[in-house]
C-alpha cells in the first residue's frame, strides 16, 4: 500500500509559516470555488515540504487550520501519498526509480552503487545529513532511464560515472 512512513511527532516543536509562504498558500486556495478549498491540500503540502524539507505534524496542523478542516483530514492524505516526507530527511533526497523499464536499463546496479558510495541503505540518510537515498516507482521518464529525481530535477540516462559526478556536484553546491 502507498503509505509507508509514519509521522514523527515532537510535541515541543513549533513551526511558523513565513509571510511569503502564506501568500503563496492563499493564491493556491483562491483557485478553487468557495466551499471546495480542500482541493488545495496536496499543493499546500508540496509548498510546506519545499519550505521545510519535510512535513511535520505541527505543519500539518497549521495546514488544517489554514483550510479550516480537521487535522485528521490532512494526516490521512499526507500518509497516503508517497512524495511527502513525514520524517526529517537529508538536504538532498535522491529518489531513484526502480520500476521495470528503468530496471531493464540498469537501475538495480545504480541503486547498489549509491548504497555503497554513500555507505547507507535505501531509506537512510548519510551521517553528514547531506543525502537521503530512496527508491521510488516509475517517474514517467522511462525512456531516459536509469534516472533519479531530486526535488524538481530529473537526472536522466545515468551511468555509474555520471552518478559519481552528480554526487560531487551536489556536495560542492554546484547544484542546489
Amino acid at each position, binding site marked *: 500500500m502507498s503509505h509507508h512512513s509514519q509521522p514523527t511527532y515532537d510535541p515541543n516543536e513549533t513551526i511558523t509559516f513565513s509571510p511569503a509562504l502564506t501568500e503563496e498558500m492563499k493564491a493556491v486556495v483562491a483557485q478553487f470555488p468557495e466551499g471546495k478549498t*480542500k482541493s488545495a491540500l496536496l499543493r499546500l503540502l508540496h509548498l510546506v515540504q519545499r519550505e521545510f524539507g519535510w512535513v511535520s505534524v505541527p505543519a500539518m496542523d497549521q495546514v488544517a487550520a489554514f483550510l479550516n478542516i480537521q487535522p485528521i483530514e490532512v494526516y490521512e492524505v499526507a500518509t497516503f501519498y*508517497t512524495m511527502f516526507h513525514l520524517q526529517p530527511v537529508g538536504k538532498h533526497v535522491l529518489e531513484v526509480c526502480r520500476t*521495470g523499464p528503468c530496471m531493464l536499463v540498469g537501475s538495480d546496479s545504480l541503486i547498489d552503487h549509491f548504497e555503497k558510495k554513500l555507505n547507507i541503505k535505501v531509506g537512510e540518510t548519510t551521517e553528514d545529513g547531506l543525502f537521503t537515498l530512496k527508491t521510488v516507482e516509475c517517474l514517467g521518464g522511462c525512456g531516459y532511464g536509469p534516472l533519479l529525481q531530486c526535488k524538481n530535477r530529473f537526472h536522466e540516462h545515468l551511468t555509474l560515472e555520471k552518478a559519481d559526478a552528480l554526487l560531487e556536484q551536489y556536495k560542492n553546491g554546484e547544484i542546489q
Partner: protein
Amino acid sequence: MKSRNLLLSHVEVPGIDGLDGYMKHGGYDTLKKALKSMSPDAVVEEVKKSGLRGRGGAGFPTGMKWSFLAKPEGVPRYLVCNADESEPGTFKDRYLMEKIPHLLIEGMILSSYALGANQSFIYIRGEFMYVLNILEKAIAEAYAKGLLGKNILGSGYDLDLVVTPGGGAYICGEETALLESLEGKRGNPRIKPPFPAVKGLWGCPTVVNNVETIAAVVPIVSEGGEAYASIGIGRSTGTKLISACGNLARPGVYEIELGLSVEEFIYGDDYCRGIAQGKKLKACVPGGSSVPILPHYLVTKTAAGENRLMTYESLAEGGFESGSMLGSGGFIVFDEDQCIVRNTWNFARFYSHESCGQCSPCREGTGWMEKVLNRLEHGKGQMHDIDLLADINKKIEGNTICPLGDAAAWPVAAAIRHFREEFEWHVTHPDEAQSRNFGLITQAALA
C-alpha cells in the same frame, strides 16, 4: 509508411513552448475558428466523426464519452485532464506538456467549450512539478491574451483553467481516484456507477480525458473529423504518441500513424532503430505495464502469421492467448539477456506498492503475488508456486472496485503463459538464479 505528425509537427521549433512561438505556427487559430463559427455541439460532432479514442489506456471513443455527459439545469459541469501519467512505460504526456504546453491548453479550451464547462482542471502527477510550472506559465500567457477568463475572444464564453498536482500515487491515474485526489482526499477509487459523467468532481457531471486525447481535439477541429478519421486503419483512427523504452537503440516519444507495422516501429530508421547494442528481441509489452507481455515471435506477427500493426485491434489480435493491447502506448522492449521472472516480480511489487488497499483481493492478492514471485526470482521457489500464482490471479480478477487488480493479475498470467519454462528454470536452478549478475551500467559497458 511515412511518419505523420499532427500533435508534434512543430515540437522542434525553437520558442514553440511560448505563446508567441505557438501562435506564429497557427496556434489558437482553431480556437478562434470554433468560437466564431461553431456551436459547442458542432465541436462534439467533429470529435464523434473523427473516431478519436481515449489515449489514456482504455481506448473508449471520446465523442461517445462526451455525449454521455449529464446536463442538468443550473449544475456546473467540469472537464478534468488526466496528466497523471503513471503507467510504467508511459512518458508521452510529459513530453507533450513540456515541449508544446499551449497545444494542451488550446485543446482544453476547445473541449471545455464543447462540453459547456466554465471551470476545468489539469491534474498532473506531483513528480512533474517542473511541468506544472511550465503549464502555469503558459496559462498565465493565455489569460493575458484573452484566451482564458471572461468572454474569451469576445465570444461570451468564460473559462477558468487550473493545474493542480498529485502526490505520488499510481492509483490516482484511475479517473475516480483522480477525482478524489482532486478533492483533496486519499486516492481511493469510487464504486461505479455512478460514472463521472453523472457524478464526478464535487458530485457534478465531469468528463475525464487524457492529455493526448485533449490535445488531439485541436487538429480534429482544425482539419475536420472526417479528415482525421481518414488517417489510420478501421476503428484505430488518427495518430498516437508511443513512448518507447527498455532495450532499444533509440528510445523516446514518437508520433505514429495508427496502422504502422510493429516491425517498422521497432527496427525502422525513423523510429527505434532496433534493439540496443545489436542484441536480439526477446519480448515486448506494447501498451504499458498493465498489458500482457508478448514473446518475440508474437511481437511482429500475430499467431495467424499476419503482420502485427500498431492499432488497437491488431495488437489485441489473438485475445489473451496470443495478443496484448495498445493501452497507453507505453512500449517496453526486452532484449535477449533480460529475465522475464525478474521483470514480472518487479511489476508485481509495483502493483502491490500502489494498491490503494480498499479491496482485500487486490490489497492481499498483490502482496501475495509479490512474495511468491520474489521467492521464485531468487531461487527459493517451488514448482507449485507457479500454479499458486495462477490461482491468486483468478481470485483477484473481476473481484475488485477498480481495474488495478486486473492490471496486476494479467501481466503475471501472460508471463507464465508464454515463459513458463523460465519460471521452472528458476526452481530447478536455484543457485544460478541466486547468483546472476545483470551487469554494471558503466560508460564502457554502454559504449
